[in-house]
């Protein structure tokens, strides 16, 4: 017996993968883990609720959004561009990390996480938020509410919310182009 397969080609962290044969109905997280050795995305609930598995989908209209990979089939990503936690930090020509992203740096500086299982997805969700604010800045007074709303779907079972939220808030407030001064 063999599983029916479908061809899959996609761009992950700027690099094209495929075409490769993927069993029909296989979820994206399994493709990342088992076929591409990209193990940084975490499998949590397996039901699209905890958001530990989210990756960033770069849409053709230059916007980005989170997509849970545990309940999204690999076929959804055919022809699409995504970023995983492995592609967030700055790397040099040899693929070595030279600098964390501002979000990653802030999480590290603030000890935002304990066990770290939810952290890759928190990084991705915060990155999506910051990219959104670049396109549509919010008033400074609304930053805390904006962070809380954007990260609400991310579940952390150790402690993290306050230090995660404060770290993202501070990254946003320190950047010149993510907020407005009006009410």
């Amino acid at each position, binding site marked *: 017996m063999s599983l029916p397969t*479908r061809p899959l080609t996609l761009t992950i962290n700027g690099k094209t993968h495929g075409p490769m044969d993927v069993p*029909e*109905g296989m*979820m994206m997280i399994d493709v990342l883990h088992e076929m591409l050795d990209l193990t940084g995305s975490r499998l949590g609930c397996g*039901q*699209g*609720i905890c958001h530990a598995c989210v990756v960033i989908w770069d849409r053709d209209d230059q916007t980005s959004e989170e997509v849970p990979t*545990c*309940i*999204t*089939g*690999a*076929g*959804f990503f055919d022809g699409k561009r995504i970023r995983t936690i492995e592609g967030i930090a700055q790397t040099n020509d040899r693929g070595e990390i030279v600098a964390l992203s501002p979000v990653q740096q802030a999480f590290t500086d603030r000890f935002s996480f304990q066990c770290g299982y939810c952290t890759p997805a928190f990084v991705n969700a915060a990155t999506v938020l910051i990219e959104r604010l670049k396109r549509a800045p919010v008033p400074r007074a609304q930053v805390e509410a904006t962070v809380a709303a954007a990260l609400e779907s991310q579940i952390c079972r150790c402690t993290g919310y306050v230090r995660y939220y404060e770290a993202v808030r501070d990254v946003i407030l320190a950047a010149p182009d993510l907020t407005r001064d009006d009410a």
Partner: protein
Amino acid sequence: MTFRRLVLSVAAAAVVGVIAIATLVAINLWRGTTGGPVQAVRAPADVVARGKYLAEAADCAACHSAPGGAPFAGGLPMQSGFGTIYATNITPDPDNGIGRWSADDFWRALHNGVRRDGQQLYPAMPYTSYRGMTRADADAIYAYVMQLRPMNVPNRETELNFPFNIRLGMLGWNLLFLRDSLPAVSAGSSPPWQRGRYLVNVLGHCGECHTPRGILGQMELSRPFAGFALGRLAAPDITPAGLVSRGWTAAGLRTFLGRGLARQGSAFGDMHPVIMLSTRNLTDDDLNAMATYLLGDNPPAPTPLPPIDPAAAGPMANAAGRSSYMALCAGCHGLDGNGVPNTVVAMRDNSTLRLADPRNLIVAILDGIGSENFPHHDSMQRMPGFSDKLGDGEAAALANYLRVTWGGQKGDVTPAAMHALR
């Protein structure tokens, strides 16, 4: 008959009609009062308990409570084609509630659609159904609500467009459309059937959503329970023929009304609060009576899901729909459509997929369904909406894949139909 006599007759009829209406108005307004003593109602505990049960069966709380507001303190906005009506405070607060209402006042509201001050109610308050209530039951509900904690929550004014903002107009509406009893949806005569008719037609006022409405907002009593879209989601056809065509049985209906979950699917949209506030509280006998009435004393056999036409559902027949299902749905609803027990509903045997009208399936695909709790600590997780991930053509193909594979329906949903509900 000469022309002159005809004119005279019509004129005479008109005068009689005007006098009749004027008399009714005069009686209502003469009876109507706004001040008066605060009522002190002391009913025996068993009457209050019966009133509580009946108030639950009549689902008063669903409308007379605002989201997050105190129970029965009013405030739920009800949209209609004529404007917005706000449910009122029916706690015994003397000024904002019904604290000065007598049992007679309460009865007139339920039975005639007239407020204590003599003004007409709008049929957003389902006196059109409650008219069939017994006086004893109305009095028991009155005894129950009058011992609730009074809530000092002001009522909001209705926001209706002219001419519907003239409450007197409802007198004419009532003459045309108010009936002492509503037609039976099924054939029967057994005691459970009779009880079920009272629970479904009168207390449960199921027809207020499930019966199609005419241009003046009246229930079209020639087609009781044939289904209607009052809002974004449609209340489906719950005639015996409609129910069995989607695989419903008496046992399935009892389970659904008591628990909100059955093999045929879960309660969502406006039906979810009906389960949670009303039918979950009913006795097994009453749930059985409702199921008996909905299907009749001799219920037709449920229609099994027809075998799939291979031409319509082969792997390549709707490759786009199947591919979207695998990409976006199968992670939760399963490759085989069986769902996840206690977490995600099955697509196989799902009543919404088996509806001939694709509207609710389309809305579920586009909007998703929020997470929901059910009786007995059951719950269903949130379903995301896919309006931003699927174009009209892709979403229509997905709907058709679902309808053909697990609904026994035609794959006739067009991209235009999908677009119309965005």
